């Protein structure tokens, strides 16, 4: 009986298709072609970075990539001395970190609610959240400006943080919903029976298990708030509230009444601007990769 069943199972499997063909070995021409393509693509993406590096350390930087003709650290000195870049960086960090905290807190609760709590028309709410994500942000620029003016949120970090968070929330709420869906309900039920309230069980049992998801949400929220330009431009024009994108802008246009692009200064700013991004990526890359894999499993 068992032998027959096994044989049938084998036969069924054999019918599914031919066994996988052994991987063909690449010939030398193929090898060269493939690598050539990789090199071209890599170069395409790397050139801007090479330019940044060369320009930042060149006293006579221009728009072309090359070995610095007048090697110097002056550009870095200048951005802190003349452009108050220390304060600008601190402002950007504050906005990005505050956005990150707000986003993590919100997606934890919203994602959990959409995953677990019985609501009427929950699927509609869930899709409405996704619909928000599809709105092009530039289309909302004017109404957001008007709204911010009326609410007194222009030249206010509160306004900037709220908008930055709002931009990221729909996608990250979906991401977290997927995470919570993949955490077995029995775990929190066990915590309820052990005597915990719903909220405490969420904090002590569910959230620690959702840590990879919260890590991704934090990383993405930070990076997006850090890199966002449009809303900064329309909401902030006070000098002391300036964040990094505005400092770039300034270095590009106003030098002695006529437009002169300070290539060296911009490159120096850009290199420092890149550092936190690299830092976030390299510290969290494992977490983010495992988290993203998890989230697709949960969807």
């Amino acid at each position, binding site marked *: 009986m068992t032998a027959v069943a096994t044989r049938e199972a084998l036969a069924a499997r054999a019918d599914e298709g031919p066994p996988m063909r052994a991987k063909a070995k690449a010939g030398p021409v193929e090898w060269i072609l493939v690598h050539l393509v990789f090199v071209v693509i890599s170069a395409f993406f790397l050139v801007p970075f090479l330019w940044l590096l060369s320009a930042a350390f060149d006293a006579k930087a221009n728009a072309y990539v090359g070995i610095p003709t007048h090697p110097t650290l002056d550009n870095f000195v200048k951005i802190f001395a003349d452009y108050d870049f220390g304060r600008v960086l601190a402002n950007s960090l504050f906005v990005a970190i505050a956005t990150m905290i707000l986003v993590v807190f919100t997606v934890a609760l919203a994602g959990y609610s959409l995953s677990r709590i019985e609501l009427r028309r929950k699927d509609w709410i869930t899709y409405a959240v996704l619909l928000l994500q599809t709105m092009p942000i530039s289309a909302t620029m004017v109404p957001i400006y008007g709204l911010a003016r009326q609410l007194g949120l222009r030249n206010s970090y509160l306004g900037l943080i709220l908008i930055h968070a709002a931009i990221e929330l729909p996608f990250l709420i979906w991401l977290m919903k997927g995470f919570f869906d993949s955490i*077995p309900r*029995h775990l929190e*039920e*066990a*915590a309820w*029976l052990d*005597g*915990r309230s719903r909220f405490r069980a969420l904090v002590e*049992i569910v959230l620690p*298990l959702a840590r990879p998801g919260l890590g991704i949400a934090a990383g993405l929220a930070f990076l997006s708030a850090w890199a966002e330009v449009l809303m900064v431009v329309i909401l902030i024009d006070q000098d002391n509230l300036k964040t990094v994108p505005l400092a770039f802008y300034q270095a590009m246009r106003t030098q002695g009444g006529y437009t002169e692009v300070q290539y060296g200064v911009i490159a120096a700013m850009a290199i420092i601007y890149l550092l936190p991004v690299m830092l976030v990526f390299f510290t969290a890359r494992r977490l983010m990769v495992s988290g993203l894999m998890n989230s697709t499993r949960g969807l």
Partner: protein
Amino acid sequence: MADVEFDQVWKRFGPQESAAVHGLSLNVRDRELLVLLGPSGCGKTTALRMLAGLEEPDDGDIRIGGKSVVGLEPKDRDVALVFQSYALYPHLSARDNIGYPLKVQKLSKADQADRIERVAEMLAIGHLLPRRPAQLSGGEQQRVALARAIVREPRVFLMDEPLSNLDAKLRVHTRTELKALQRELGTTMIFVTHDQAEAMSLANRIAVLNAGELQQIGTPDEVYDHPANVFVAEFIGSPPMNLMSATTTGDTAVTDGGWRLPVPSGSAVDHPETVVGLRPEGIEIVADDHPGATRAEVITVEPFGSEVIVDVRLGDDSIKIRTAPEIRPAPGSQVALSVKPSAVRLFDRASGAAL
């Protein structure tokens, strides 16, 4: 006192679906080990979850120790549930898993450690305490889950198929231990399973459920010897009770296969349309000249060491007989069968109820 009472409890999950629990009324006595037994989807787990507070009944009342618990949060019911999946907190060590309910109760660190040690010793898992659940085998996880339930000293233990993820040998071993443990602790326990052998070996009483309805409640012997209906007769026992359509007149039932069987005295006689039930051990293979014996053809013989199951055919009925290991009739041969009147059970053919 922690007796548990289901009083006309109903639960329906969707407007289109039939009720998962169908007017369930059930009394579980203090210190009793009651097994809820039934096939999957019979509502036994739903009943358990309603008692735990993880589902709310649509109608009816559930009482623990005489007080209604309907509407109470799970945390306020003082019941412990061991899940089929064990539901150990993956990010906590075994020690912290077991200690979690104590932490919730805000016991002092010393008291917590004390009680964890005591339970760990009782279940022989002291050496596992520093490990995370992922580092434990299925059997070890099961023990940790059990420890987490015991350490709280709850009013009622609820077990949702806690043995079904263990391999066969460990399952039998653990159920023996569990029974001893429940007696030692003296705590009311409700144990859900679809495995009738598990139910028979564990229970003080078994409640058999089917399609959300209680079929019978009684001691293992009662449900085995006097099944309330055809469903219970077929569900309990391995191999199950032999059931044959029969026509009953007076004190004799004649099966469709032509077997004349004596009906136990006191059974209804004016009920011609019946089903006759015979346990495999209620039928004897006898000498050919035995008075009242009937002859049947042997189809297969299955030796199990301590017993032999002989499958015979009589008309259209296939009948299983449990015999001593030395009785091995050859397949294809004819044997004579005899039955004691006390072994015969009668059921109404239309309703399936015992007569």
